[in-house]
């Protein structure tokens, strides 16, 4: 099973916020979709994009991203599903010929779903040379996924969280915030932004985010041979020092009781979110132009108020509106105007511009835009 078991069909830009050389560019690859199933891949890829847009801080840094999908038609559908796995799980025994040769039961663990990561990486780079990160969507309903050079996720509704967690590692260097088999960390301060050994209020890594009333450590682990399953002693969202990190139960601390880098199904904590933002922020659209123009003109009767709307403006553009009257009026002001904004969908904005004629004569007006950033 290999690249001989499929063909790259084409590449589509799903989220276009400008040149790839400036944006943080994510590529979604199809795995285990036959030609006739590529429409399903389109739906599955859209679902992942929607998931990412709904995941803070990606939501607020959305304009920093470009996203592509690469259609790859595999000879077979799904992923290899070994009949027996070392962890005791039972599969169907079906083996399929797919482009990336993905399989469940990697390293004897059924939920580990992965394939040829090097081929996935080179395929992504061939399709989109400026790729920053790659997610492979495997056409399999069963829960599974993995990390590494690329992130792997099945189409199971809960599996997309795997890819979001793994992007936290590969793209933003976030460390794991849990312990599993290691007891007490005795090393030096880690270089990762979301972990620390420093419990001093004055010098700990995210000292500026910790309230003076929050105890430090906020939650230490009384038994370093196991994960601490007690409830949090502080309200949700409290930033402090909570034991656990880099697979150690003790000796390393993370910032909040709940974080996606500790367990899936949680939001990113403030420190992890801040780290992601710091990287994505450099990819936001810069100032350009400004590009100026007149969007519409109209006539207002005496004392009339009228609202216009103009739609399908890219949400990432910085658009400044002004309204002027082209009818000479003396003395005193002629018009007043007001702008309201609608996020019609993930990518476009509708501007509602209300103009009031303040005079007792008809006036002609024109609405002008100035686009201060486009890409």
């Amino acid at each position: 099973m290999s690249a001989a078991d499929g063909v790259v069909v084409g590449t589509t830009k799903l989220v276009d916020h400008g040149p790839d050389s400036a944006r943080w560019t994510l590529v979604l690859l199809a795995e285990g979709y036959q030609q006739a199933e590529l429409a399903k891949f389109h739906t599955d890829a859209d679902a992942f994009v929607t998931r990412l847009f709904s995941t803070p801080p990606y939501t607020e840094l959305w304009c920093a991203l470009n996203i592509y999908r690469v259609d790859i038609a595999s000879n077979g559908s799904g992923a290899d599903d070994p009949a027996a796995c070392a962890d005791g799980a039972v599969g169907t025994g079906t083996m399929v010929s797919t482009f990336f040769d993905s399989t469940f039961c990697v390293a004897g663990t059924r939920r580990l779903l992965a394939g040829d990561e090097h081929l996935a990486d080179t395929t992504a780079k061939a399709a989109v040379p400026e790729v920053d990160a790659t997610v492979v969507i495997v056409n399999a309903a069963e829960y599974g996924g993995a990390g590494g050079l690329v992130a792997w996720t099945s189409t199971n509704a809960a599996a997309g969280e795997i890819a979001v967690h793994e992007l936290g590692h590969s793209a933003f260097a976030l460390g794991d915030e849990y312990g599993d088999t290691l007891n007490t960390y005795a090393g030096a301060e880690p270089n990762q932004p979301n972990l620390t050994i420093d419990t001093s209020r004055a010098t700990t890594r995210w000292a500026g985010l910790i309230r003076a009333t929050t105890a430090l450590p906020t939650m230490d682990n009384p038994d370093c041979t196991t994960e601490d399953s007690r409830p949090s002693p502080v309200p949700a969202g409290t930033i402090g020092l909570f034991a656990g990190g880099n697979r150690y139960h003790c000796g390393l601390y993370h910032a909040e009781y709940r974080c996606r880098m500790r367990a899936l199904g949680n939001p990113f904590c403030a420190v992890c979110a801040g780290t992601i933002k710091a990287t994505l922020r450099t990819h936001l659209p810069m100032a350009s132009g400004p590009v100026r123009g007149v969007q519409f003109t109209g006539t207002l009767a005496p004392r009339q108020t009228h609202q216009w709307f103009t739609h399908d403006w890219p949400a990432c553009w910085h658009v400044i509106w002004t309204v002027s009257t082209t009818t000479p009026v003396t003395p005193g002001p002629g018009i007043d105007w007001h702008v309201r904004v609608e996020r019609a969908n993930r990518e476009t904005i509708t501007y509602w511009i209300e103009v009031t004629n303040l005079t007792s004569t008809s006036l002609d007006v024109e609405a002008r835009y100035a686009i201060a950033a486009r890409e």
Partner: protein
Amino acid sequence: MFVGIQFTGPVAAGASHTWFTHDWSPDWHVIWTVVPLTPVAGAPQLDWSVAVQRAGASAITYWITIHNLTSAAIDVEARYEVLD
């Protein structure tokens, strides 16, 4: 000229929320625009107003009040455009 996002945050249904941002240079020509982050099609979701405070000889504070015009909470993003 440079642009950016100054803050994001939620505004409750039908409510207004004021943010302030301080220590801006009085020499800068700063324009503020606001957009919703929560997609809801069909009608305007927000508008905003800006009040300005000369906090010191070399510092301006902008007070940005954002009004949610809908019956559901929305997330908003305040952007600055500095023209010089």
